[in-house]
Structures are given as C-alpha cells and as structure tokens.
C-alpha cells in the first residue's frame, strides 16, 4: 500500500512564543522550528506499517517555505521514501495558507499519487486548527478516522480507535481514508545518523501552488494578534491550614 503523510514545519513545542510588537503575528525570527509533533507520530506509524510489510511506499508532503525541505528530510530520515514540497512564502500559522487551502493542495496531490490512505496529525501546534484531515476527507469523499490512538489495517479497511471526550471509540472505515493521529498512537523514534545521511539522497520534488492550481488567498484576515491577559501567579501558602483558610475566606471557592 502507498501512503501519503502531510508534515508541517512549525515552531518547536518547547519554544515560548512572543507576539510581535505591532500585533500583526508571532515573532518567528530565530525561533527553533521542528516537525509538528503529531506529524512525527504519523510518519512513525507509516514507517512501522512499512516495516511490517503492509505499506510499500511513504510519500511525505509539506506546504511551506524553502526551509520546510528540512522537515521533509526529517520525515525521510524516519522512514519516508520521498518528499514533495509545495513551496510558498505565505505564513503557515495565521494570515497565510489556511487549512482549507492545505486540504485542497493535498487533494490535488492525492489525485496525482493515488495513495491507499493518508495519515496526518490531528492538529498543528501553531494554528491549533484541527481541521485539515477532516477537510481533506470531505473533499475526497473519503471516510475519516480522527484522533487515532490505534490503527489496524486489513482487507481494504482500517479499524481505528479514537480518543473522544468520554473515553475511546472504535470505528471501521473503508480505504482509501484519512487517518489523523493522537498523541498516544506511538512514540516516534529518533532518526539514526546513517538514516539522516541516507535521507539526504532520497528524492525531493519542489512545486508551486500554481502548478496545482490552488489559490492561497486567505479567507480570514488577521485584525490583530494579542497576548492573553497575564495571570498574576506566584502566590504561596505555608501549609495546609493556610491553604484551607485562603480557599474558604479569601477565594470563597470551597
């Protein structure tokens, strides 16, 4: 089976971001960027399926700046066979390429590459949209298995265990399908040095949104970006008695 894995270059999850002084967006200069953690999980899952013999080819796709080639190389170091960059200088967190446009781009690539399924992150940790996978599934009229913590493939179907608000749900979806990953699906490996070296030689295609006829004009214009109200924390109590007293008589919450 052939699988397509969209991977996004996003601010590293350890970075404490800052809002730009002119409130136009987030300060991204000299900030560490990494692969969106959910997408690492997606690549790991695809790689495991390849090691198990179920998957034969993994294509990693990213939409982003020239630098996003690094993200594709990371995907290839984990297990992707080749990469496709759809290059754009538009921001990918806000005010630029939006989930709908990403989904349309991915649809065009799916039609070209004809994968048996797509596995991708449930959410980008920068825009926190949680939309793209569901949108792609809708545009293709494919079923979706979102927020997956377990995936089993058999007989043209995928059995997906989903993390939902009340617990877990298992559904069976026909392939082709879109699967989106939750955190507990697997633990992504660290790419080994030899694999990082090998990844440098794997094929990487670069194309432009125009090549796929996709319009990246945003539908949402950014009026402003602000910091949330700062919480005044740092208060301390000496012991349990003082804590109970404060909760009862100061906060009046118990």
């Amino acid at each position, binding site marked *: 089976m052939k699988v397509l894995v969209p991977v996004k270059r996003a601010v590293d999850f350890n970075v404490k971001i800052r809002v730009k002084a002119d409130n136009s967006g987030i300060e991204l200069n000299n900030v560490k960027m990494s692969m969106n953690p959910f997408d690492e999980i997606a690549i790991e899952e695809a790689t495991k399926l390849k090691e198990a013999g179920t998957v034969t080819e993994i294509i990693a796709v990213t939409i982003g700046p020239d630098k996003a080639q690094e993200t594709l190389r990371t995907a290839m170091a984990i297990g992707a066979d080749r990469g496709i960059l759809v290059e754009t200088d538009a921001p990918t967190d806000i005010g630029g390429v939006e989930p709908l446009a990403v989904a349309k781009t991915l649809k065009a690539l799916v039609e070209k590459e004809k994968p048996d399924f797509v596995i991708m992150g449930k959410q980008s940790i920068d825009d926190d949209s949680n939309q793209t996978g569901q949108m792609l599934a809708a545009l293709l009229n494919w079923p979706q298995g979102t927020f997956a913590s377990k995936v089993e493939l058999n007989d043209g179907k995928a059995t997906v265990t*989903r993390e939902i608000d009340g617990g877990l749900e*298992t559904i069976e979806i026909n392939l082709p399908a879109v699967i989106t990953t939750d955190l*507990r699906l697997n633990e992504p490996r660290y790419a080994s040095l030899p694999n990082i070296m090998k990844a440098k030689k794997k094929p990487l295609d670069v194309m432009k949104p125009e090549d796929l006829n996709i319009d990246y004009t945003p539908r*949402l214009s950014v009026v402003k970006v602000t910091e949330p109200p700062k*919480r005044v924390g740092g208060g301390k109590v000496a*012991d349990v008695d003082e804590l*109970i007293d404060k909760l009862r008589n100061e906060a009046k919450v118990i």
Partner: protein
Amino acid sequence: MSILILAEHDHQSIKPVTLNVVTAARQIDADVHILIAGTDCSAAADEASKIHGITKVLKSDAPELSHRLAENLTPIIVGLADSYSHILAPATTFGKNVMPRVAALLDTQQISDISAIHDADTFDRPFYAGNAIATVKSSDAKKVITVRGTAFDPTKSEGGTSPIEDVASNGDSSLSNFVKQELSKSDRPELTSAKIVVSGGRGVGSGENFALIDALADKLGAAVGASRAAVDAGYVPNDYQVGQTGKVVAPELYIAVGISGAIQHLAGMKDSKYIVAINKDEEAPIFGVADYGLVGDLFDIVPELTEKL
C-alpha cells in the same frame, strides 16, 4: 439569516456544553435553530425545545445517526446550510470531528475554538497553545465555527417553547461503521463543566496513588483531571487529559498536584478562576500561574488536606 447549532447529545439529553454554544450564537443573531441528529432522539429534541433563546429545533431521527459518524452527519448539515449565515458546534471531539467536513464542502474556512465574538464576521480564537489570541475577520459568505465552551456562560436550559421540525437524514454513507465505545464511567462531575477540578501529574507516581487525588476530589465534589504525562504513563484514561491537545477547563478552582506546568498543560487550565499548585519543586513553572502555591511532598499534603476539609 438565522444561525444553526449542531447540538451535542446522547439521544436522551443535551450535553451541557451546547448551552454555552447557544450563548455564543445569540451574540451573533437572535434567530437560533438547533439540530438534533440522532436515533430515537425525541427526548433530546424535547429538551432542546425548552432551551431559552432557541427559535426552532430541527430533528433528524434515523438509525444511521446513532453513533454520530461524521460521514453521515455532514450531508444533513450541508443540506440545511442554505438557510443559515453561521453554523456553530462546540469545540469538543464531536464538533471538531464533524465541522471541518461541513466547512470543506461549503468551501468555507472554519474558525476553530472561538473565545469571543466582535461582530458577525469577527472572532477571537486562541492559538499557539493559548499563548496568543488572534482576532480574525472572515470573508466567507457562510461561517462555520466551533466554540470554546468555557469562554461563554451557559444559557438557561428552561423557559423556551420552540417548535420541533423533522429533517430527513441522507442515509448511510457506507463509508464508515461504528464498532464499539469504551466510555469511562464516573459519578463525579464532568471535567469541562465542573466547578472544581483536581488534577494529578507524573508526580503522583502510579495509578494506585491516584486514589489520593480521587479522595480529595470526592471531598470537594470535584472532577478529576490529569496531565498528559499521567495519561501516557497509564495512571488514568485518556479522557482525563487537560491541555492544548486534551480538554480545556476553566473551573472556579483548579488544584494541580504533582504537575510541573508545561505550556501545553497551562493551555488547558490557565483561565481557571483560582489555581492551587502542590509540588515539591519550588521552581516548577506551575507556581507561576498559581494563586496559592504549596511547596512540599504531595504524599503528605494531599492526605492532610483531604482530612482537614
């Protein structure tokens, strides 16, 4: 034009978060309809018709809607969309699963997880784990929106008498099938609407030790939550997770026990009214957001607190 809300319900009754979505909808327009799509869902529809501020209930009652499969729900909503300017759902795993599918078919860029409404086109939404708030203005003719429940007060569940109208389902998509559900059972209040939440982290050390957290929660009539580390370690089920990629809570009182306070955890609880942190590391970032920090060993503090309450 009117507003349509996709209700979250279990066929019998409406999930409380739906009431928060009604409040948000009414900030946009007074004509608010609510869709109950389910199986044998008359009870839920009746309950919906009593919600204050709802002008019409649409009921789609069909066997293929018993498990809220997005593939079956989407065509119903898309079919209704012509009459509505805004379509809203809660930003729960239910709403997050269905709404982007609707948005894509309507060629609309969804606005996820809104926390404030400026006007019919302009909304606030947190991003970057809540470390920034974006005010965005949509140029789409139709808005598809998920609503952060904790950002809007619930509307009254009583007082309305709206008519109930039947809407046909589009049948089974044959794309997906429900297999099973394993829901955590608990007599405690639901995490996202509880007044008090007690959460445990990796510091709690084991599933057995979580009994300490449970005992404190029960004393306070609180819900129990957890950090991702505690869930990953298997101390508690996944639906306890509070944070950027788990649940967002904003209770009157949040008690974080043995939780360091990573930004992804703070994203899910920092809008709580009062925060208590119990941690043995006085440098732990959680103290930076705590109103009442207590430095010390949770295995001494938590039993003492439970005892003295």
